[in-house]
């Protein structure tokens, strides 16, 4: 009766990660420079209610949902590319988002405009990578990786050119700060559209889980299992990239979560079933929320989130590898 045991294990792990995520989400609501109390919120304290809805709630929402999206889409990238190092960077989404955000900071005004430009940059990079890959009629899976490297290089060049034209005092600092990633200063208005889109596309990705697993087979084999490999890969990658774009266009670049969370989930469950994809998302949310809590509470000024995702992620990965070796 191995099946129920394994399912219970994945279910138990998901429940544990879910509880941890809820706890971190609640902490995220009450940790910060302006003290919030449950009594104050329930009593309708004007200032506390305003801080709660304009700052803390959005931050918690982006931390939980954004982390979940990064983790789950990392699972999809690694499975479809059959590459343990695959991440949104592979097809240039992060560098496209950076170049778009830099253009937004230089030529537009307002956070919402920067978010929109970043989203546009990410999507443009993905379409460029997929269009380049489509030029190769052989349909090899590696083509999209090569196309992604080319688009990444192009986006980096655009980013450097934009930085050169930026005002060093103000705009350059903003670009650098954006690239470092933060959950600070995201308005509920700009986050609502992105998070709603992110949730819908993620639901599609979860519904396509069985197809994602089929895409992990070699291309010939997948075709002979009735999978329209080219079309399906395009849809799945586009959905995963849309998800990531929704998050990074709000937060700036956040490293390591899309790579680490799926590895953690796989090492814990030793499978690639739906439960593992859910666990990847939950671990992504836990990592981002924990990193954000540290980023805003360890120093006087707020620190970049990516520092903590990397600092939390590296030892966690080492621990999981050591644990995995013991269990083999």
């Amino acid at each position, binding site marked *: 009766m*191995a*099946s129920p045991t*394994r399912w219970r294990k994945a279910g138990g792990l998901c429940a544990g990660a879910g509880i941890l995520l809820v706890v971190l989400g609640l902490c995220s609501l009450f940790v910060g420079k302006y003290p919030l109390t449950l009594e104050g919120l329930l009593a309708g304290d004007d200032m506390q209610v305003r801080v709660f809805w304009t700052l803390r709630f959005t931050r918690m929402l982006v931390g939980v949902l954004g982390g979940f999206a990064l983790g789950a889409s990392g699972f999809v990238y690694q*499975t479809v590319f*059959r590459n343990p190092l695959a991440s949104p960077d592979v097809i240039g989404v992060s560098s496209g988002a950076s170049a778009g955000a830099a253009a937004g900071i230089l030529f537009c005004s307002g956070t919402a405009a920067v978010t929109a430009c970043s989203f546009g940059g990410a999507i443009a990079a993905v379409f460029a990578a997929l269009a380049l890959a489509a030029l190769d009629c052989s349909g090899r899976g590696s083509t999209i990786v090569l196309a992604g490297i080319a688009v990444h290089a192009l986006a980096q060049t655009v980013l450097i050119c934009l930085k050169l034209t930026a005002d060093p005092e103000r705009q350059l600092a903003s670009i650098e700060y954006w690239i470092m990633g933060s959950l600070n200063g995201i308005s509920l208005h700009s986050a609502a559209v992105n998070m709603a889109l992110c949730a819908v596309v993620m639901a599609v990705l979860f*519904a*396509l889980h*069985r*197809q994602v*697993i*089929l895409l*992990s*087979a*070699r*291309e*010939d*084999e997948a*075709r*002979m*299992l*009735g*999978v*329209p*490999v080219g079309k399906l890969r395009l849809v799945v990658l586009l959905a995963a990239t849309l998800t990531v774009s929704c998050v990074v266009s709000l937060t700036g670049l956040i490293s390591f979560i899309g790579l680490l969370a799926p590895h953690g989930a*796989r090492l814990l469950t*030793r*499978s*690639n*079933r739906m439960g593992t994809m859910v666990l990847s998302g939950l671990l992504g949310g836990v990592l981002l929320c924990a990193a954000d809590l540290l980023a805003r509470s360890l120093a006087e000024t707020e620190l970049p989130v990516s520092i903590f995702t990397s600092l939390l992620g590296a030892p966690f990965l080492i621990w999981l590898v050591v644990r995995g070796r013991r269990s083999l």
Partner: protein
Amino acid sequence: MNHEPFFTVTGLTAGYGGPDILRGVEFSAAPGLITGILGANGSGKTTLLKAVCGLLPHGGQSLLEGCDLGSLPPRQLARRCAYIPQRSGIGIDISVLDVVLMGYNPHLGLLERPTAQMKAAARRALALTGLAGREEENYQTLSEGQKQLCILARTLVSGAQLLLLDEPESALDFQLRYRMLHLLRRWVRQGRRGVLAALHDPMLALSCCDRLLVLQEGRTLAVLSPADDLLPELESALSAIYGPVSLTACPGRDGRRHLVMLSEEQEENEPWNL
């Protein structure tokens, strides 16, 4: 047995971008038969299988009961024809049962999941291939031979009429390779079905195949029937690809004629000079 054409290949040409490897292969097979493909390395055995199911750009036609396989979209193709490569490309942690359930994909909608009946049938297919009780094991922990048997189980549940197998015996030991071929013999007799298998081992092919397609330099050299053809005729065709060979007929305990092939290559008497 019904011997009207079930599967016909005409003027099949294919290659990998350079000169054609297949140069106009022609043959046909009746239903209920296992057709083995024999040939030296590089003669086009794998290329033939890939061209038949449209995995390679090709010229000519492969007709299964009158339907051109090359013109079918992947889903329709997978319902009619299944392919087992030399090595499966599944590289992720996945249970043995989940690998077999992949075989139902052509019969499921995009968002549908395998039913309880499909799971029960997948377990029976695993039992048939000797993998009973290993449903929840990680596919990656199986030996190469067991992986081949698992992929065979996946193929059996797919409902395809034509199985294309690329050296399915290569990773199997003596007992398992005969078990696999006997299983295929049972399967192929169940209806309008056929098996086309590229085989590395001519003895296995002579013992288990109804017909043998002998390829030489991408062309059909001969189509043989090991049970009926005269020994000199078989020897002549097989010697053309393996060098001088002789065949000896041995009656098995079941009374059937079994053929044993020996190499008649003369040992060189020249002094060893390295």
